[in-house]
């Protein structure tokens, strides 16, 4: 397994104390209300707090908080790149980098291997690329750096939303905002915007219809720019899940729009009436 050579990890023999916990992790019930009071089988996303323009050094930045999930994103660019090959001459390049702080997950960096980070970065790039007008930035490179401060579920979905807000805050021309939403299918019911325990609870024996799904969506163009699922789901479950995630994206849309308008007003206040 490719190992992460950039971080200094603790000694190999150290383990999380959670392993020695005598009480076994109880599987979350698949009926009844969820732990934080939201409803199952309904598009009930966590309330979201977003703010743009936090990092002064970056061209654009955004911070999103949903429940306990905290994600920060900075955008640098457009910067000039050396001419590598023909494709750079006609359109720009978007590079993404998604990193997890070692303290962000319940286990210290244990399931976060270097290749998993790269996988998230790749999915983030595939979700953002259709929305950015790269042909307007030839020979340039736009860098998107996402840092996850706390992982409490639906991390990719919130990272996508945060990154597209940061791109908008940086003034990069885009066709549309990209919003993310994720879903966890658990037996016959689903939960939208799952928390970390909801995402990772495994129910042995229930077999089919166990899965996680993340969708990145462009609301005004009605296009899906990113899709990722794992687990075992039937085809109807998957398509229903995609529609549910799209509804979830629409729920978050007004909040994001308001935050961007506020950021623009703060940066360039409207002329005083005189």
């Amino acid at each position: 397994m490719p190992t992460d050579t950039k971080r200094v990890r603790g000694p190999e023999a150290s383990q999380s104390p959670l392993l020695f916990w005598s009480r076994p992790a109880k599987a979350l019930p698949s009926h009844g209300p969820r732990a934080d009071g939201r409803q199952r089988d309904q598009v009930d996303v966590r309330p979201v707090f977003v703010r743009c323009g936090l990092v002064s050094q970056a061209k654009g930045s955004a911070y999103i908080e949903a429940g306990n999930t905290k994600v920060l994103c900075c955008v640098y660019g457009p910067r000039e790149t050396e001419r590598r090959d023909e494709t750079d001459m006609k359109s720009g390049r978007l590079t993404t980098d998604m990193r997890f702080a070692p303290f962000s997950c319940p286990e210290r960096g244990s399931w976060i291997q270097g290749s998993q980070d790269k996988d998230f970065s790749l999915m983030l790039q595939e979700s953002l690329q259709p929305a950015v007008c790269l042909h307007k930035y030839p020979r340039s490179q736009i860098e998107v750096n996402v840092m996850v401060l706390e992982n409490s579920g639906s991390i990719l979905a919130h990272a996508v939303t945060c990154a597209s807000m940061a791109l908008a805050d940086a003034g990069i021309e885009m066709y549309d905002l990209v919003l993310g939403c994720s879903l966890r299918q658990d037996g016959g019911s689903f939960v939208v915007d799952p928390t970390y325990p909801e995402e990772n609870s495994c129910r042995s024996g229930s077999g089919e219809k166990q899965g996680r799904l993340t969708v990145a969506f462009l609301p005004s163009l009605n296009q899906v720019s990113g899709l990722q699922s794992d687990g075992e789901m039937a085809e109807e479950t998957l398509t229903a899940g995609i529609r549910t995630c799209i509804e979830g994206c629409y729920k978050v849309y007004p909040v994001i729009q308001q935050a961007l308008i506020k950021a623009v007003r703060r940066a360039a206040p409207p002329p005083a009436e005189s």
Partner: protein
Amino acid sequence: MATVQVSEAEKVYILHGIRDDLRVDGRGCEDYRHMEVETDVVSNTDGSAKVTLGHTAVLVGIKAEIGKPRPMIANEGYLEFFVDWWVSANATPEFEGRGGEELGTELSNTLYKVFNNQHSLDLKSLCISPGEHCWVLYVDVLLLQCDGNLYDAISVAIKAALFNTKIPRVHISTDEEGGKEIELSDDPYDCMRLDVENVPCIVTLCKIGHRHVVDATLLEKACSVASLIISVTHRGIITCSRKVGRGSLDPESICEMIEAGKRVGKALHPPLMKLLQQEESLGKKRQKVGFLC
């Protein structure tokens, strides 16, 4: 992915052809190219398979080793995937833009997701003694030639290689101090086989124009903006799906593509299993084709 240079006129030609359900090599939109599967090609491995799909060739070798189980899941073995190229990415001029290493990482991460569920492979049968020893299957994929549609070829090769895998039987004995000792049985033919009924196969659907095609060549891939990768079991359960590419897809066309992918994937399993069982039944009489063809 590797790119080919395609002119605008050629793109239009391919687009119009696909609109009328006719591809450049005469296939329909949901037809695969000629596929050849051969197992047990490398004798040093516990299981191996080579798959040739048109001009794409993939070799998978599986080695089983005894290791410590994952801390949170003490009574199961696990699989480790690694994808590599035959020649270095820089040496082949085709692989511009994205480095071969990145693509290898993307492929192996997708494989982890495909097998990240309880029913694809019975991991409990890979456990030797809970919390201490288990079988770790190292699945190493070597990409020999790339002409598009790597995911499909790799998944078929992995299924064939897992079918071919022979894991030696072990039994644990306690010695005088109370420590556990692992003994491999002396008979080289006394081995455990894996049940690959539920191992999924990956179907890649490329969106070209308004239609989607299965098993796209590099040329067709250059005309498409986005593809959907779906892994389907023989019962039609979807274990992993992922959108790749720089474009976006309409929700309606995603639903159509998922439905088509499920149909095509489900139809891929019975002939593959039949072929594998036939090959197995030939036993020693089988003529090995190998690599010189």
